[in-house]
């Protein structure tokens, strides 16, 4: 009888993430993964149905961690300015501390796996974000905008700064760049100004 072993599953997820991030989706095969994780190929199939399932489960796992991290100390009832600040700090910290997760999420976004992935995502996070935005609009703390415009103003600046931080270089690629709380607050202030009704 083959039994599940959580530490084996964890090792498989870790190695698979490493392989995809370093070598792309084509760099991941069950044989290579088995070797890297020190298990037999058959063992992988105890935890994952096939290669596609492995990729989708991996994304869901990383997404779950990101959502978990972003909701720490957050309440959809918060004032918009305060709530957005919590989101910025939480998300920036998560991506900076988990560069591989950030990388995988970007890779999935531009791959055929994306549709399969989003269909399975936990609604808890999207619901909390939706509630937060609706409350803020009702209280006239936030201008009403189509979602894509809202997101592009509210979060894209942060993600751009995080990307620059992870590359370690500023625009142009010559100067060093490090995202600190001062830079984040300065940017956040402008973002909040843009989103005021």
């Amino acid at each position, binding site marked *: 009888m*083959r039994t599940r072993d959580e530490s084996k599953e964890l090792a498989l997820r870790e190695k698979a993430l490493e392989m995809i991030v370093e070598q792309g989706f084509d760099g991941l095969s*069950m044989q290579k993964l088995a070797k890297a994780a020190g298990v*037999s*190929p*058959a063992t992988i199939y*105890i935890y994952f149905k096939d290669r596609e399932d492995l990729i989708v489960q991996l994304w869901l796992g990383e997404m779950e961690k990101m959502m978990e991290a972003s909701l720490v100390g957050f309440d959809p009832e918060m004032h918009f300015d305060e709530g957005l600040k919590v989101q910025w700090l939480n998300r920036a910290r998560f991506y900076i501390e988990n560069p591989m997760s950030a990388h995988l999420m970007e890779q999935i976004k531009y791959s055929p796996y994306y549709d399969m992935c989003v269909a399975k995502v936990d609604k808890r996070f999207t619901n909390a974000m939706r509630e937060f935005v609706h409350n803020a609009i009702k209280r006239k703390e936030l201008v009403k905008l189509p979602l894509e415009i809202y997101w592009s103003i509210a979060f894209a600046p942060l993600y751009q700064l995080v990307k620059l931080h992870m590359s370690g270089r500023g625009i142009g690629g010559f100067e060093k760049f490090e995202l600190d709380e001062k830079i984040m607050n300065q940017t956040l202030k402008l973002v909040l100004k843009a989103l005021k009704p």
Partner: protein
Amino acid sequence: MYPEAISEILVFKTNLLNDSDIEKVALLLNAHSGIREWNIDQNDIDHVLRVEADQVTPGEVIMILQGAGFICEELPD
């Protein structure tokens, strides 16, 4: 109360190369009452057949595939 039945997972190397091969064994696998679920990893070099089953021996699955003219070997742990 009986404890909840946990299916066993059986893993095989096959030569089921394409959809038409899979179709040929699909009816046989679906018809087996002990097999709860099965799938083939078409992205894998071993064309792995993964079976979730209750009280089915690897030998039975191998017989099913071999009877349909395919190669099937259990992958060792």
